[in-house]
C-alpha cells in the first residue's frame, strides 16, 4: 500500500471512529429514505455494520433493493463547518450477517455501542453488514476523494 492509500485509509478510519451515528439511505420504487443509525466499522474498512428492527421501513427497503448509501460527518453545526467539516459518503450493498460470522461483527458493534446490547440481541432486530464498494471523502468544502474498496467499475457512470 502506498502513502496516498494509507493516508486516505487513516482519514476515513478517523472519521468513522469518532462518529457514533451515520445517515443510512435506502430506497423503494425510486423514493429515497434516510435514517439515523448507530454503526461500527471493520478495521480493514471493507464492512460497516448496523442494526434495525425487522419491521422498519428501512429494512423493508433493503430487502427490495440492497444498494445503500451512508453519510458520516463531523460537522459541529457552526459556520466554520464549511471549511473545517469532513463528510464521508459510503456506497455499498447490505447483506444479513451469517450465523458463523455474527460473533465477530457483534463484538465490533457492541464495543462501539455497549448500551445497545439488548436491542441487538432482540429477536425483532436484524443485524446487517454493508459490504463497502466506495468511500467518497469530502473535505475543505469542495474536495472530493474517492477510495475504491473493490476493484469494480464506477458507480456513477
Amino acid at each position, binding site marked *: 500500500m502506498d502513502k496516498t492509500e494509507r493516508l486516505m485509509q487513516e482519514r476515513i478510519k478517523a472519521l468513522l471512529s469518532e462518529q457514533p451515528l451515520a445517515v443510512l439511505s435506502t430506497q423503494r420504487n425510486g423514493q429515497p429514505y434516510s435514517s439515523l443509525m448507530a454503526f461500527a466499522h471493520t478495521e480493514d474498512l471493507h464492512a460497516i455494520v448496523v442494526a434495525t428492527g425487522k419491521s422498519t421501513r428501512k429494512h423493508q427497503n433493503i430487502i427490495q433493493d*440492497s444498494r445503500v448509501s451512508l453519510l458520516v460527518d463531523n460537522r459541529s453545526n457552526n459556520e466554520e463547518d464549511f*471549511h*473545517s467539516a469532513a463528510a464521508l459518503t459510503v456506497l455499498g450493498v447490505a447483506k444479513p450477517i451469517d450465523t458463523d460470522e455474527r460473533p465477530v461483527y457483534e463484538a465490533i458493534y457492541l464495543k462501539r455501542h455497549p448500551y445497545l446490547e439488548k436491542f441487538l440481541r432482540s429477536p425483532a432486530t436484524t443485524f446487517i453488514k454493508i459490504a463497502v464498494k466506495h468511500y467518497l471523502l469530502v473535505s475543505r468544502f469542495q474536495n472530493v476523494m474517492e477510495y475504491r474498496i473493490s476493484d469494480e467499475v464506477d458507480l456513477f457512470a
Partner: protein
Amino acid sequence: MKWIYSLEDLPYPDASVIGGKGLALFQMSAAGLPVPKPVCIGTSAYDLFVDHNHLREKIGLELYRKSIRDMRWEEIWDASLRIKLLFMKAKIDGELEANILDTIRDHFGDRPLAIRSSAPEEDGAGGSFAGLHESYINVAGPHEIVKKIKMVWASLWSDRAVLYRQELGLEVVKSQMAVVVQPFIEGDVSGIMFTRNPLDDDQMVLEAVHGLNQGLVDGAIAPDRWLITRENCRIELHYKPEKRDRWFVRSAADGVICDVIGDERGEQPPLDEPGVEGIVQLGLKVEEHFQAPQDIEWTQADGRSYLLQARPITAGSEETSGDKRAWYLSLTRSYDNLLQLWRRITQTLLPEMDEDYDRLKAVNLGELSEAELAVELRRRIELNERWTATYWSDFIPFAHGVRLFGEVYNDSVEPDDPFEFVALLTGQKMLSTERNGLLLDCAKLAAADSSLQKNLKRGVLKDVGGQDFQAKISRLRSHFSVDFVGVGDLSMVDQIISAMILQYTLLDSDSAARGQEEAERLERLFFEKAARNIDIDPAELLSMARASYRIRDDDNIHIGRIGQELERACEYAKTLLRTNEKIVQPKISALNLCLLLEGEKIAQDASAAEVQESETASQKRVKARQLQGQPASRGVATGTARVIEHMADLSGFRKGEVLVIDAIDPTMTFFAPLAAAIIERRGGMLIHGAIIAREYGIPCITGIAGATDYITTGDRITVDGYLGICTVQSQDENIEKNLSEPVC
C-alpha cells in the same frame, strides 16, 4: 455594548480588548509621556463587523481551500487580496458606525487622523513581527475614516500576517483586531529608537529622517543613524546616509507622498546633537516606565516631540534554513523602487541579455576544438548563472508591480471582482502572444500545403515547406526559445514543434482582441477614482504595472534564449566527445562536460538518467472525484485530460484537451490556445498559465495540489473557472451490474 475606549475609561481594558499598541499608548499617556491623544476601537467592534457580514466563514473558505502549508506565498497574497476586498465591500453595523464617528468627532473634531492596527497578539509572541498589519495616516472625513478602519481590520489577514500565522496564533474563529485612532502629527523629523541595541547591550540606536517616518519604516529612505553609549548617553558614532534627497510629507489629498527634499534641508542631518539628546532622554523615560528596553517610534513637529509607538524589544524570530518568508516579504517593493527596477530592466538588463544571446548565437560551435569548446562552455555556464541570479534579484521583485497596482486599483475602485484589475493588463503585445501568432502563420502555410503536412506528421522540420515557412521556423527558434531547454533529446523538439503546428491548423485564426472596450471603460474608471485617491500619477502606475505584467512573461523567454545557447553548446560537446570515442551519459551536467572536454576523468552515474515512475496501482484505488483550486480564468469547459509529466508528453497534446501540468513555463505557453482549459498544480492568479489563459479566454484553475497525481491522461474532466473546481467525470460505466446482488 462598549466598543470604543478613551483615556477616561478607567481602569484601562487589557490588550485582549484594545491590543498591545493601544494599551501601551494609553499607559504612556497616563504617565504623562507626550503621546498624541489615543482613542481605541476595541476588538468587540471587529467581532460585530465580521459576524454581521458573515466574514469569518468567508475567510475560512479562502484560507482553508487547501492546507495553508501547501500554499505558495503568491496564493496567500491572492487570498489576502480577496479577503481585503470582502472587508471593504462589507458594511459596518449602523449603530456601531455612528458610535465610532461620534466619538472621533467629539475627541478630534475635523482634524486629520492616524488610524493604526493594534492586534491583541502584538504584545505577545507577535511582538517580534512588527509591520504585519496596516496603519494609515492623514485620514480625514467620515467616508475615509470608515474605509481605513475596515482596511485596518482586514490587515489582520494580510499576506504577511498569514505567512506568520503560527507565530501569531492567527485563527479564523478567534482572532481579532483593535484599532487606534489618534490625531495625525505632521512631523518635520521622525524616526525610531532602540533603547538597547539588539546587537550590543551597552548601546542605544537612534535613526531619523526628515519628514514623516513612512520611508524609514518600509526601507525606502536611508536614515541618519546614531549609536549612543547607554552609560553616559554620548554619541559614539553617526552614520550618514549616502544622500538625503527624498522625504515623506503629508499629501494634499489623503495619506502621504514621497517628494524631493530641498537642497538646503537635505544637506543637514535631521537631528543636531541636542536633538539626539532630547530623543534619547525621551526613550529612557519610556524604558523606565515599562521597566524594559523599548523599540520606539517618534516624531517631532514644531519643536515638540511625540511618541507614536513603543513596544518591548524582543529577540527576532529565528529563521531556520529553508524559511523563505523574509525573502517573500522583501519582494513587496515600494513604488519608487519599482520605477527604478523598471528602468534598469528595460534600459539595461534586457538589452544586455539580448546582446549576450546574439554573441553566443554567432559562435560557430562546429569549428571549435575540445579545448576551445570547454572554454566556450564555461563562458556559457557562467553567463547562464549570472542571468539566473539577475532573474531572481531584479525580474522577480519587479513582478510585484502587478500586485502593487492590484492593491491600488482595489483600494480606489472597490470592484466586485478582486482580480478585475488584470483586465487592464492583458491584451498587450507580449512575446508569448507574438510567438503564438508565428505558430499560427506556420499552420496557415501547412494548411495550404499537403506535402508539408505529411512531413510535419512525420515530425520533420528540416528543409521542408519552402523559404517562407523555414524563415518563420527559424525565427521561432531564435526568438522564442522553443528549443526546450531540458528536453535533452533535441530530435524530440522537431517532433513537438511539428505536432503543435498541425494542431494550430485546427484553430480559428480570427481570435480578435476581446474585451477591448471593457478594458477601456475600466481604465477610465480607474483614472477617475485613483486621481482622487492616490498621489502618484495613475497613468504612470498603470504603465509600470503593464510593463511588470509583460516582463513577467517575457523575461523567461529572454533568459530561455541564454539557456538554449548553453544547451546547444552541450549538444555540440557531446557529439564532439562521442566522435572522439569518449563515453558520455545522456544526462551529463554541463560542468562535467567541461571536465571531459578538458581531458579529466569523471565518474558518470548511468542511473541518474532513469525516469522515476510514480504511478502505482494503489493510486488508482484512490481517485479524485472533485478537486479544488483557485479560479484563475473564468469559464467552464469539459474535455479529455492530457497530463504533462515530461516535456515529451507535449507532443501528444491535441486541440480541445484539458492541459494538466505541474507548472507552465512561459516558453511552453503556446499550448494554451489549443487547450479547452488549463489546470496547474502551482497556485496563483498571476502565474504564467493563468496569464496566458486569461489572454485567450480559456478557463483555468491553479493551485490544485496533486493535480498531476490524481488526474490521468484520458480522464474526462470539467473545469469550472468561476469557482476553481475540477470535476473528474466517470471513466467507466455500468452501475447496475455491480450492485444488484439481493440482500436475502
